[in-house]
């Protein structure tokens, strides 16, 4: 089977992003960029399906500026067979991303689309569900385990109350949660090999998709600051402060 893995270029998860002082957006000058951690888990899962003989081909796809090639090369180094970049300077919202991915899926006819449950920049948690909806595919969101068997996929999902398992007809969309796997690191020889793997580029116009945004960001401001706290010397002092100063316990 064929697996499509959409990935997103985001600010590295270790970076504490701040709002610009003029509140026009997040300050992203000179910050380290990386593949979104949940997308990395998606790439890993697809590669494991290939290693297990379940998948024949893994295609990584990303949407964004030319710089996204870097993250696509990372996916290729990890084991994806080829890559597709939908190149645009637009800030594409999840709905636009989903429409572009639908168009790519219609060309490629994957049996499975695996992607991260959420990007750690806009924290939207929408794209997988939207692609599934547009394609009329079933979805297994927040997956911690998947099993493929005879035209179906069983997905164990991390839900608020615990775990839920659903069975989906293929083709299907799976979005990854943290416990699905632990992604590997790319080896140096594989990084070299990845440079020769095919990477095709399309524009949204070529795919016939209008990906213009529907939402305007009026401003981006810092969250309310917390007042500085105190260090207490003992458990006694802590209990006293909680009872008599903060008055949160009785």
């Amino acid at each position, binding site marked *: 089977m064929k697996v499509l893995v959409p990935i997103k270029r985001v*600010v590295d*998860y*270790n970076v*504490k*992003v*701040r709002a610009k002082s003029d509140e026009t957006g*997040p300050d992203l000058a000179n910050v380290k960029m990386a593949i979104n951690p*949940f997308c990395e888990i998606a790439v890993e899962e697809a590669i494991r399906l290939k290693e297990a003989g379940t998948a024949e081909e893994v295609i990584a796809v990303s949407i964004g500026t030319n710089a996204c090639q870097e993250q696509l090369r990372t996916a290729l180094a990890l084991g994806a067979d080829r890559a597709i970049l939908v190149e645009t300077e637009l800030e594409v919202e*999840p*709905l636009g991303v989903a429409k572009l991915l639908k168009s790519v899926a219609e060309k490629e006819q994957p049996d499975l689309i695996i992607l991260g*449950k959420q990007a*750690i*920049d*806009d*924290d939207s948690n*929408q794209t997988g*569900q*939207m692609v*599934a*909806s*547009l394609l*009329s595919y079933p*979805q297994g969101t927040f997956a*911690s385990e998947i099993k493929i068997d005879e035209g179906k996929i069983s997905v164990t999902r*991390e*839900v*608020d*109350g*615990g*775990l*839920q*398992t*659903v*069975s*989906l007809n293929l083709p299907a969309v799976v979005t990854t*949660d*943290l*416990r699905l796997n632990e992604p590997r690191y790319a080896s140096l020889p594989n990084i070299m090999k990845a440079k020769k793997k095919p990477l095709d580029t399309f524009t949204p116009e070529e795919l016939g998709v209008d990906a213009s*945004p*529907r*939402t*305007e*960001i*009026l401003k*981006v*401001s*810092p*969250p309310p600051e*917390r*007042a500085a*706290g*105190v*260090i*207490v010397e003992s*458990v*006694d002092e802590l209990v006293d402060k*909680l009872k008599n100063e*903060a008055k*949160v*316990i009785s």
Partner: protein
Amino acid sequence: MSILVIAEHDNEELKGATLNTITAAKEIGTEIDLLIAGFSCETVADQACSIPGIRKVIVSDSESYKNFLAENIGLLVSKIGKDYSHILAAATSNGKNFMPRVAALLDVSQISEIISVLSEDTFERPIYAGNCIATVKSSDAIKVVTVRTTGFDDCEDQGGSASKENLDEDSNLEISSFVSEELAKSDRPELTSADIVISGGRGMQNGENFKLLEGIADKLGAAIGASRAAVDSGFVPNDMQVGQTGKIVAPNLYIAVGISGAIQHLAGMKDSKVIVAINKDEDAPIFQVADYGLVADLFEALPELEAKL
């Protein structure tokens, strides 16, 4: 302007997250309908009718909605919701699952996890793990919005008398089915609605040591949470995770034990009213957000704390 709120429930009882979502709806407008989609969920519908300020409760009762499969609920909500100006649901794992499907079917963007309503089309929502707050304005005809429950108080749930309308509708895409679930059973309050939360991190060293938190939780009537590190290490199950991609909590008191305070954890708890950190590493970032910090070995501090409460 009319607002459709999708109720969160388990076919037996209306969940508290619904009440926070209705509060958000009331800040947008006054014509609010509540949709109960489920199976044999009559008692939920009756509870819903007593919420003040609801125009009508729409009940869609079918086996297709029993397990809240996103494929079926999403289709149903898109059919009913197309006549409204706003569709709201709580940003629970259930709301996050089906709402983007609704938005895509209606060809509109979704505004995820709002924490405040500025006007009928403008909302605030956290981005970058809560390190920035974005003010966003939607130009879509129908606003599909999920609500972060910690951003809104719960509304009254008694005294209303909404009318009830049974909807004869069965949306089933027949492409997915429910297999099983393993839900955590606990006599403690729910993590997302508890007044007090005590959470353990990697410093707890193993799952057995979480017992040290249980005694304190029992005395305080607290819920127990965990950091991602503790869940990834297998100390405790995933439903206890507090953080950017786990549960968002904002109790009156949050006690972080053996948690270093990664950005991703802070994103899930830094709106708590009072934060206590107990950690033996005095440089741990958790102390930067704590109102009260205790630099101590948790294995000594926890038994002492339990004894003194």
